[in-house]
């Protein structure tokens, strides 16, 4: 029952935030406490036995909307909850309108529903609610740049969801059901039927627009760069992960290994390429998000259990350190007055020490140094990948991440100390604590045996080697500048690239 109470109560809190705007912060804290209680109950039920399955309204399976509370769902729900805590702290003193809090509650409630749902149309409505809520949040400051970025976001996501709905129609015509478990059986019964390929391509292409796959998610850099830092953290940490969760559910139905492999490699490499050449801090973080999503897709593509669990573990870790980086970067950019890295380096003494420490922890997490969050997840993931090609790509991504983040290192040192207020420091401490303590925390997701198998010298060596190589490459490449085409981020090209991506997925599904 907690599965459906989590979203419904959150929505109620959202409505209450509008009802009594003055108590909006109290409602936010109360909502977090209620969610913590429900999540712990769910965790206890899961620890006791198998996953909880329920159909909303008590109807028969296949007739109503099915919800399943398994480990994946609980993990992502906890991630969303943790990010919610940090956002509430971070924005405590910013005096945001009740409208912001309602959208926040709706976003988190929809995310809770998304991680548990097993129904295709329910996923569609939840993804649309997420799009609308996050699109309004991106435009919150009402600056023209924000409004234009969020309008592009809305148009491209709406197009993606229309593709998803077409795919739903295709699938419904041939199976008569919208339930993912039932669909998986039907697809397995006739895996080479043309409707399977078309339906799969449409569904995956539609969700990929939201999930941060590079070809499809060209709205991502502008939306992240121009939004409020709390909103960017939510986008990277919550909204995109929900697309990834839906891709994960779809991968249980369709044979998507080859598709994820190709899309993952393309996303990772292109993301790193754009991340290396940009000197805008927020855009750097946005491109880095894209490349890490590629990493996740490669994990799903590898097919082994270890790789899938490693990918999920890494998704959680990425949510944590990307949120921390966005929050800290937002604070730094606000203090300095711009987000260009060179200006941040010049004015680094005006950036509070807590912010710089938070940036340091975030960078350590994202480049995968032990014992922080990224390291263990990467090790588990790599242990599960067997083709050498993927190993090479993964190594390349690690080096590329180190190269792109090396340019932030000059911001960190400085003999000056500036104070920041308690709310932002608490937010940083919360997330940084989770990153530092990630290894013991991840016992909840990754089985002990897998973890201990990766806590070995080769993994350490690989991590340190990647970082050193990245630093050296950054030194060497520091003088060179290269420009990549920026015109692909417009609506027109974005639409055509989504169509092209659909064809790529369609062709790949022919060979699966």
């Amino acid at each position, binding site marked *: 029952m907690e599965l459906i109470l989590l979203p419904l109560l959150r929505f109620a809190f959202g409505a209450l935030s509008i009802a009594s705007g003055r108590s909006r912060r109290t409602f936010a804290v109360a909502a977090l406490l209620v969610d913590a209680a429900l999540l712990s109950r769910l965790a206890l039920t899961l620890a006791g036995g198998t996953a909880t399955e329920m159909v909303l309204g008590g109807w028969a399976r296949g007739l109503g909307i099915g919800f399943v509370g398994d480990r994946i769902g609980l993990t992502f729900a906890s991630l969303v909850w943790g990010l919610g805590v940090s956002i509430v702290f971070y924005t405590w003193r910013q005096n945001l309108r009740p409208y912001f809090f309602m959208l926040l509650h709706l976003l988190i409630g929809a995310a809770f529903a998304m991680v548990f749902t097993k129904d295709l149309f329910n996923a569609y409505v939840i993804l649309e609610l997420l799009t609308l809520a996050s699109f309004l949040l991106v435009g919150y400051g009402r600056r023209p740049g924000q409004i234009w970025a969020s309008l592009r976001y809305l148009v491209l996501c709406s197009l993606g969801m229309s593709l998803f709905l077409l795919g739903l129609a295709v699938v419904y015509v041939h199976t008569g059901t919208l339930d993912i478990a039932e669909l998986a059986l039907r697809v397995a019964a006739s895996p080479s039927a043309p409707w399977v390929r078309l339906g799969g391509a449409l569904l995956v292409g539609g969700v990929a627009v939201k999930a941060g796959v590079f070809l499809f998610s060209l709205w991502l850099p502008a939306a992240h760069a*121009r939004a409020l830092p709390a909103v960017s953290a939510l986008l990277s940490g919550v909204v995109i992960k929900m697309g990834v969760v839906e891709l994960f559910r779809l991968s249980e139905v369709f044979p998507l290994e080859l598709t994820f492999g190709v899309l993952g490699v393309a996303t990772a490499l292109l993301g790193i390429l754009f991340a290396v050449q940009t000197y805008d801090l927020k855009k750097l973080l946005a491109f880095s998000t894209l490349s890490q999503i590629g990493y996740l897709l490669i994990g799903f593509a590898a097919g082994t259990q270890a790789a899938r669990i490693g990918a999920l573990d890494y998704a959680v870790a990425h949510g944590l350190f990307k949120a921390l980086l966005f929050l800290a970067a937002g604070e730094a950019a606000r203090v300095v007055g711009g987000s260009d890295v060179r200006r941040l380096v010049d004015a680094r003494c005006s950036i509070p020490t807590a912010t710089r420490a938070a940036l340091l922890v975030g960078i350590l997490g994202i480049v995968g140094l032990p014992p922080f969050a990224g390291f263990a997840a990467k090790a588990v993931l790599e242990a599960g990948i067997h083709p050498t090609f993927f190993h090479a790509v993964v190594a390349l991504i690690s080096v590329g991440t180190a190269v792109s983040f090396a340019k932030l290192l000059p911001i960190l040192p400085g003999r000056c100390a500036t104070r920041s207020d308690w709310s932002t420091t608490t937010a940083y401490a919360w997330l940084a604590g989770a990153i530092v303590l990630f290894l013991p925390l991840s016992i909840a997701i990754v089985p002990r045996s897998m973890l201990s198998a990766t806590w070995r010298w080769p993994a350490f060596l690989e991590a340190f080697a990647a970082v050193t190589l990245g630093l050296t490459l950054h030194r060497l490449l520091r003088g060179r500048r290269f420009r990549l085409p920026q015109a692909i981020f417009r609506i027109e090209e974005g639409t055509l690239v989504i169509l092209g991506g659909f064809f790529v997925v369609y062709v790949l599904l022919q060979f699966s």
Partner: protein
Amino acid sequence: MSWLNGVTVSIVLFGIGLLGLVLRRDLVIKLLALGLVNASTILCLVSLGARSDGAPPLLGISTVQNIVDPLPQAIVLSAIVINFAILALALVFVMLLVERYHTTDSHRIERETAEEEEQEELWS
């Protein structure tokens, strides 16, 4: 099966909407095209259950054998409201942009937003 049924028409409309979204520079036309794309998916879903002797899904009024498939119709209700919300909010944003830039040309708005960003970086 005749090729002139709701599903085929809806896919052609989807294509027309896509072309409008890509080829026209005016923001309002782009939104119209997006609305057309969304409406065509709705048409597709509703036509899935259509039949020549079909009856509305009302018990006690229609003969049970002729009732059309009610599930796509129930689904489409949500999709209609979602499309309405998207269009309304997108129009609000277009209004705000037009007030600021006095044009509905998407390329010009793109250019001016990018220039403004660079200006902000230089001045502050």
